[in-house]
């Protein structure tokens, strides 16, 4: 398949959805279709056959556990390694360690959440801008299809026709 990209900008998500359905019917693989929008429309308009996945609550939870454990161990082990008594109190004071463990849980959750978002979104990405990208800024829905040079005109005509009708 020659690397041709066919772009179409749609004013509304309904129009885009019609075009996507049509592409699906024509047997275009979901990986060859890219839908882009300036607002979250992922429950409204997605390429036929593609699935949305996010590991987010789980990675955050894992990060929280890791962060909490790391902070707890840091306080406990270092205090025991260099025992310095203060105020007649035990070397490892559990309540203060609890406070610090809590912050560890939070920072672990925050960092892993951000990392997961970046990873799942493929950011930072280096893809080149397309000729119709400014349409996204106007809140249009942009659909790009990977296709042969020859087929593109026919598809374009079809897709746009369908969407308009």
């Amino acid at each position, binding site marked *: 398949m020659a690397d041709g990209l066919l772009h179409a900008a749609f004013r509304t998500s309904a129009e885009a959805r019609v075009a996507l359905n049509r592409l699906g019917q024509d047997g275009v693989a979901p990986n060859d279709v890219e839908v882009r929008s300036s607002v979250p429309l992922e429950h409204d308009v997605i390429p036929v056959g593609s699935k949305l996945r996010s590991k987010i609550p789980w990675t955050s939870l894992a990060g929280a556990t890791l962060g909490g454990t790391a902070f707890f161990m840091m306080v406990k082990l270092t205090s025991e390694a260099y025992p*310095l*008594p*203060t*105020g*007649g*109190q035990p070397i490892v*004071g559990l309540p203060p360690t609890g406070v610090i463990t809590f912050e560890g849980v939070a920072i672990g959750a925050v960092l892993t959440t951000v990392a997961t978002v970046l990873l799942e979104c493929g950011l930072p990405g280096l893809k080149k801008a397309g000729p119709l990208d400014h349409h996204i800024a106007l809140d249009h829905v942009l659909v790009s299809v990977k296709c042969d040079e020859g087929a593109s005109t026919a598809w374009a005509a079809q897709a746009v026709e369908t969407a308009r009708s």
Partner: protein
Amino acid sequence: MTRWGMAIDTDRCTGCGACAVACHAENNIQTVGEVEAAKGRAMHWMRVERYYEGVFPDIKVRFQPVMCQQCGHAPCEPVCPVYATYRTPEGLNAMVYARCIGTRYCANNCPYTTRYFNWFAPEFDAPLERQLNPSVSVRPAGVMEKCTFCVQRIQESQELADQEERTVRDGEIQTACSQSCPAKAITFGDMDDPASTVALIARTERATHLLEDLSTEPSVIYLRGGR
């Protein structure tokens, strides 16, 4: 185990202030000058507080020398973020000047207000710099300091005792304040040695602690109630 302690007989104290002067000389405490002192920045590890009892003309002045109480449960210690102040095994509330970053939290949490801060670098007008004690460091600006129970004298005596292969004798160590007190109101010694003078005094009926209800377990005992 050794646990250093001090007893101060307020019934004997005449309020002469010799202890405060001796402390200044022994511990290289800076004299801040008139202007700074007026702002409340005077530094006296040992200060003599004055209280008036009764109504004029039937009035009685009482003196109370106050210095760091070397608390067993010191409120100043846990709040320091960098362990600049901590508890030594011998019951001293130690101050590590090199670690101090100057948060001043310890001073805020001291109910006796016996911690002093170096707002400026110390200056000693000539010829005062010639009488600086070589066993004691001069503290830089931005660092907290307070009474150490003359820890340099304690160490000196302990080293001597080690060389002579014996333990430190009771009364061998004299802090600068107890040495200079003309009324012999201040006694220093080992609280854990039941035969030491200070331990004997601590068991008398007149023994009290300053702000005892805060349960800071001070190592300084005040005697009063006589007369």
